[in-house]
């Protein structure tokens, strides 16, 4: 797998969902509802945990739980930007 900071956020989300839940990355569009692909409250917690691991950061202060792939991408994106900035210095 590529280092997270070089991946677009949606690819990181797709890869994580593929590895964790066996979902076909090509079937995951920004508007895809998480519930529709079998992500419930428990698996969402594990998914966020796994994304945090890959990013080496925490998203503990998530105000609203993500409901779609797009929501997850929006959560991940700022952290990728930070990682890229840190890697550049």
């Amino acid at each position, binding site marked *: 797998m590529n280092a997270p900071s070089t991946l677009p956020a949606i690819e990181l989300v797709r890869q994580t969902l593929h590895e964790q839940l*066996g979902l076909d990355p090509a079937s995951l569009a920004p508007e895809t509802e998480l519930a529709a692909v*079998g*992500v419930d409250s*428990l698996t969402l917690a*594990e998914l966020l945990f796994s994304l945090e691991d890959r990013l080496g950061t925490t998203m503990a202060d998530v105000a609203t739980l993500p409901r779609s792939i797009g929501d997850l991408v929006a959560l991940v994106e700022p952290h990728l930007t930070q990682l890229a900035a840190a890697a550049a210095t």
Partner: protein
Amino acid sequence: MTAPDDRRVVVTGLGVVTPWGVGADVFFDALLHGRSAVARRSVGEPPYAATLLSAACDGFDPAPWLELSRLLTMDRHVQLAAVAALSAAQDAGLDTLPAATRERAAVLWGTGAGGAASNERGYRDLFVRQRPRVSPLSVVLGMQHGAAAHLGLLLGAGGPCLTYALACASASTAIGEALHKLRSGACDVVVAGGSEAAMPFGAVKAWQSLQVLAETGAADDPARACRPFDRRRSGLVPGEGAAALVLERLDHARRRGAPVLAELAGYGASADHHHLTTPLAAGQARALRAALADAGAAADEVGYVNAHGTATLDGDPVEIAALREVFGSAAARLPVSSTKSLHGHLMGAAGAVEAACTVLALQRQVLPPNAGLEEPDPACAGVDHVCGDARDGLHGGLALSSSFAFGGSNAVLAFRRA
């Protein structure tokens, strides 16, 4: 005298997950042919790694049975349980059960270590990898009743959902208590059994410290390391797997046209009240007698005993002494085998896998041998040890399956030919 049909409880489905794969037949055929699943295996990752002789479900793949999102929330012993239970439900035709009956279906499950491997992963994250936190699924992966809870969800069972933890007697107790629940009318169908995953590193170290695990010399065949009742036995071999029995009252089974594999005729439970780890023949004999009395059977009706026979130095002679005490002079003609020589000791699941073996022996009228027994220990003499090849014919309509646990908890199941 035979009990009325609404008091008799029968086995209408079997689901077995063992090192030989998923299915009762593949399991029983392996036993009849003396195929051993015992090998030397490594557990853990260096520097926290150990080797031991064990039997494990190396090729187990739950993916055809369960979606990944569900597997994520299941410890390995739960995954084994789920496949066993789904397979048993299929065997019994539970998919056609009306919704109202489903609400009166129960799950009674046994496990010894439960989610120990998941818990150990969490501890490793915290204490070894120095991570500041553990997976959010840690609690649900580690909970002791995870298997029963998942089975209830998978089967849509709305009746009692209970977990029994009595070490090596867990699954036998779950199956025996199911008999009581069905006789009392508390539920109409029970999926009962047990599951145990392979020991994680910490548990292996604990069992090694207890000095009850089998060892072999470098020149010996690991596959023959488990030798119940043999002069050269050196200890038990941990096993891995699951088995589920679908149980219901005979009248209920007949009404829905379910196949009747055998009758679960009796259950006896007792406590040694003697010692935490040293078994007592008198305590075991109480459970054996209680099972026979519960079945309304005389000792001479018993044509086979699937023994607990773990191959520990202290345990084996005590079990034979208990059989001699109960069967008296007839013990010498009582066919006895411990199949742990091939599948190892499944701890909390042992009673379920061995109950399945006992049902299959009654059904097929053939006795699986104790493949590890070559030179009977004189201290274990006095019964008719079934060793060498499988033995055709089961005289008498009753077969017993015994489980005697650390802590002095004993459970004996009596099955009758259908």
